[in-house]
């Protein structure tokens, strides 16, 4: 789903444009450093394919159709950042020439369809492709990545619309996510069936995912899955006390608990969001990002395995 013009507030449109421009600038920088840059005609042809693929609607339910989005598919073929450039081209053509997605909403659409599909989806795909060896991983990875990327994009669109003051986040987020589960299933299935045909005849074309099996992408995939669990699953977890708290209450020493350090958000509750699902979700996301940043900083400081002195 593309956001049309007129539905994002000026601050949200400006912020998402800035985010989209920054992601394109980063993609161009990464590509410039690449020793083997992809020719522009190949990326242009892939963009034309994704555009054409989005025009072929499949009937899903009576009165409802779905189509390929293609972000994870493009990333599997040419890598996540080139995939982002491909999606930026597709969205620019759709927005300007066919009124499909707004000009002011270009940044939001790029982050939701390109960023979520090509970068987050690719990260999950690379993780799965690393776990599943051989050509099976080249198909299974993008299938799961496309599903995750579509849901990430839907969540992003919901949050952008809520931040623009159109709908309350508590209402629009569950609606968007539940509506997008069947769409994500269709996207995953279409990505998988297209890639199965490609891998059968020309597995060498799936260059992005083959090189993405090593390097940082699988680690980023773990982070994406951890963020999804923290943001969407953790707030709906059981509110009953855990084993230690339960035993402490039963034996009567629960009141002896003293905080050695004044935590800013005790009990995963943010003061300005109150004691609800949203508070737990934001606290979970911040905590996951903080833990990931700390782990990344420590591994950089300590050095990667095998970085020791060599003879």
């Amino acid at each position, binding site marked *: 789903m593309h956001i*049309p*013009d*007129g*539905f*994002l*507030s000026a601050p949200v*449109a400006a912020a998402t444009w800035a985010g989209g421009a920054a992601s*394109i600038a980063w993609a*161009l920088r990464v590509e410039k450093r690449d020793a083997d*840059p992809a*020719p*522009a*005609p*190949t*990326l*242009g*042809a*892939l*963009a*034309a*394919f994704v*555009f*054409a*693929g989005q*025009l*072929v609607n*499949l*009937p*899903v*339910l009576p009165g409802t159709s779905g189509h390929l989005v293609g972000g994870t598919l493009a990333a599997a*073929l040419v890598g996540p950042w080139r995939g982002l*450039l*491909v999606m*930026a*081209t597709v969205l*620019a*053509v759709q927005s*300007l*020439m*066919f*009124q499909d997605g*707004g*000009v*002011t909403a270009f940044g939001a659409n790029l982050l939701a369809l390109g960023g979520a599909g090509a970068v987050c989806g690719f990260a999950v795909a690379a993780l799965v492709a690393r776990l599943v060896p051989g050509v099976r991983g080249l198909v299974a990875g993008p299938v799961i990545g496309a599903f995750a990327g579509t849901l990430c994009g839907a969540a992003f669109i919901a949050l952008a*619309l809520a931040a623009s*003051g*159109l709908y309350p986040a508590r209402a629009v987020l569950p609606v968007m996510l539940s509506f997008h589960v069947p769409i994500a299933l*269709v996207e995953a*299935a*279409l990505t*998988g*069936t*297209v*890639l*199965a*045909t*490609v891998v*059968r005849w*020309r597995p060498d*074309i799936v260059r992005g995912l083959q090189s993405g099996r090593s390097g940082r992408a699988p680690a980023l995939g773990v982070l994406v899955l951890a963020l999804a669990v923290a943001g969407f699953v953790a707030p709906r977890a059981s509110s009953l006390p855990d084993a230690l708290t339960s035993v402490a209450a039963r034996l009567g020493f629960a009141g002896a608990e003293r905080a050695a350090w004044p935590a800013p958000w005790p009990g995963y509750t943010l003061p300005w969001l109150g004691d609800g699902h949203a508070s737990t979700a934001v606290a979970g996301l911040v905590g996951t990002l903080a833990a990931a940043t700390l782990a990344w900083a420590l591994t950089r400081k300590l050095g990667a395995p095998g970085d020791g002195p060599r003879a």
Partner: protein
Amino acid sequence: MSRALATRAGVRRPGLRLAAGLALAALAAVAPAGLRGESVPLASWLVWLAALAAGAASFLRAGSTLPQLARRVAWLLPFVLVLALPAALIAPAGRRAPAAAALVVRALAASLVAASTAFRLGPLGLVRGVRALGAPERLAEVLEAALVGLAAMLDRARAMLRAREARRTGHGAWALVLREPVATLSGFGRFGGALLLRTLERAEAQQRARLARGADLT
């Protein structure tokens, strides 16, 4: 499609036209629409009116007709209504109809002026405009390659779909996914995979040909 993709290389100062069109679209898209219960300012209505008039005039001047213009607006209307109506329902009572009307007019005005700018410029004028606005050359190259390949790609996809429909007389090109999930999805996979392979192999062949002629493709 081929009409929409027809080049209008003769359009002068494409960068200025593109910048002006995008600026008017952005202005129309972010003009206040009274979402927080306040009344819609008169200035917003004037901006939307100006954008609608400019968009329609630009379309007509570029050779479009009124029925074509109406079709463009009608195509967009369902998407706009899906987003506008729920937002209007949660607006304060008594402000729902104005909020819905303002959202719909705002979305249509901004979309129309952006689309008319691109229609007036044509694909190659659009690429020239993007270059004139100082966009990174790499992006402009990919955009140009995508636009050049788009018409051929759509024709190829249409021909493949037609051939598929001719072979599968039971129920057109595709069955309902829920009725025949495996056959429909694997059919789409074979179609999409074949189209993708043809596309990328054609791009590889073009690249080899240009390399053979000594072109720098990076």
